[in-house]
């Protein structure tokens, strides 16, 4: 890697000042699992790396009295999928956090970094977006909040200014009987980048009818994309096969995939439909109180496990 300065500030204010001093030439680092790779291969050069792991607020998971949860931008994936309140309230986010890289990557990589890296294939972005997650951003003139669903603006591009820092991701309190589910397709069983992915979220009324829904696709457009027509297709139904099929068709119509080494346009469009159908069915089942395991749930070994 080329030379750069390394600083580890202890507060959000210091971090913002350190970023603002070198606009575009400084970048925040949490787990470093994307940033250091980019620096190594020369895809990015920096004058300054601002390590944000020394800032207490960015390392916190705060559970609000209303059931909403704020996840600090530097919290690594293993703390997300081992956190009882996140597991209980936001299983779709657990689905994503447990498939980002392998165990060693999950020890460092963060949801905040996944979001700021802005890759179209970022596995956590659809799961966050469908539950209405909000990015808490600090800048020189104070703080602002921005919906995760609109955070990414292009491959590797986000709404984050060069002098701004992602502080946390705020998950609003989930309505009753509401859950999410995330699925991706990869040719291996694990340790791969999504050919396509789909995050779905639904809320049911007491009779089991879908009253609200969101679907966000990964890896089939320059950014994660929301599919409002898929949500419309499922709202007012109980998730019957015809409704799931209509949502699937809406996702296929919305996908704008490219052909690359991971998959063709046609395959990705097909996968958008299949994954949307399955993710919605999984979210509905969870909202009904059924247990729908995540991709690796059966053989995930928890850090807290003792024998």
């Amino acid at each position, binding site marked *: 890697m080329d030379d750069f300065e390394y*600083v580890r500030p202890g507060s959000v204010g*210091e971090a913002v000042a350190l970023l603002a001093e070198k606009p575009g030439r400084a970048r925040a680092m949490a787990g470093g699992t994307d940033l250091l790779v980019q620096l190594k291969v020369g895809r990015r050069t920096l004058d300054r790396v601002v390590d944000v792991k020394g800032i207490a607020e960015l390392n916190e998971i705060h559970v609000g009295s209303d059931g909403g949860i704020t996840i600090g931008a530097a919290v690594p994936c293993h703390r997300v999928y081992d956190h009882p309140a996140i597991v209980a309230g936001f299983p779709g986010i657990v689905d994503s956090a447990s498939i980002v890289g392998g165990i060693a990557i999950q020890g460092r990589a963060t949801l905040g970094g996944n979001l700021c890296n802005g890759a179209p294939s970022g596995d956590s972005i659809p799961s966050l977006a469908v539950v209405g997650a909000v990015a808490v951003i600090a800048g020189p003139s104070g703080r602002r909040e921005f919906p995760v669903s609109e955070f990414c603006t292009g491959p590797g591009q986000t709404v984050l200014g060069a002098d701004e820092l992602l502080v946390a991701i705020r998950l609003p309190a989930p309505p009753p009987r509401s859950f999410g589910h995330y699925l991706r397709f990869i040719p291996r*069983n*694990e340790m791969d980048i999504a050919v396509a992915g789909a995050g779905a979220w639904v809320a049911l009324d007491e009779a089991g009818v879908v009253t609200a829904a969101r679907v966000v696709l990964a890896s089939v457009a320059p950014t994660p994309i929301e599919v409002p027509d898929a949500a419309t297709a499922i709202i007012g139904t109980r998730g019957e096969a015809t409704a799931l099929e209509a949502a699937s068709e809406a996702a296929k119509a919305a996908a704008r995939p490219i052909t690359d080494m991971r998959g063709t346009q046609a395959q990705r469009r097909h996968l958008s439909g299949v994954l949307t159908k399955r993710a919605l069915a999984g979210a509905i089942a969870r909202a009904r109180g059924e247990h729908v395991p995540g991709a690796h749930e059966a*053989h995930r070994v928890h850090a807290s496990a003792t024998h």
Partner: protein
Amino acid sequence: MVAVDARTATKVVVQATINGEPVQFLAEPRQTLLECLRDVLSLTGTKEGCADGNCGACNVVMDGRLVNSCLVLGVEAAGASITTIEGIAPVGGLHPLQTAFLEQAALQCGICTPGFIVSASELLKRNARPTEDEIRFWLAGNLCRCTGYDKIVRAVLQAAEMIHPAA
């Protein structure tokens, strides 16, 4: 206050605990922990494979978590406790994983072996009797191009049995 400030110095003094011993070394901000271990501290048991977090050959334990040392900066080790392959075996002996890897012939060229043993040792700390699926999932971030993995999985199963024999 800015806890670590490498704006003026080209090298930073890093104090860490490595394999239970207090260690002090000089690191450039751009040097990875892997480079510091191998080139500065001469702990060459940790191997460089892909250098981008895909292969797990450089895995070490940092503050109780398995990490790819190629994706950690050396300066980030300040204040951390790190275990490398050199810290796995007891004095004068082998860790059961090392014995089992030898007995099962779970290595050929050996480049991936330190990473597999460090990774597997972290699995066995959390799950004394892992299933084959659990072993394969935990070790998915470690690549081996010689063995086809089967012997490695058998070695980890054997090590688990050696540490906690079935009643």
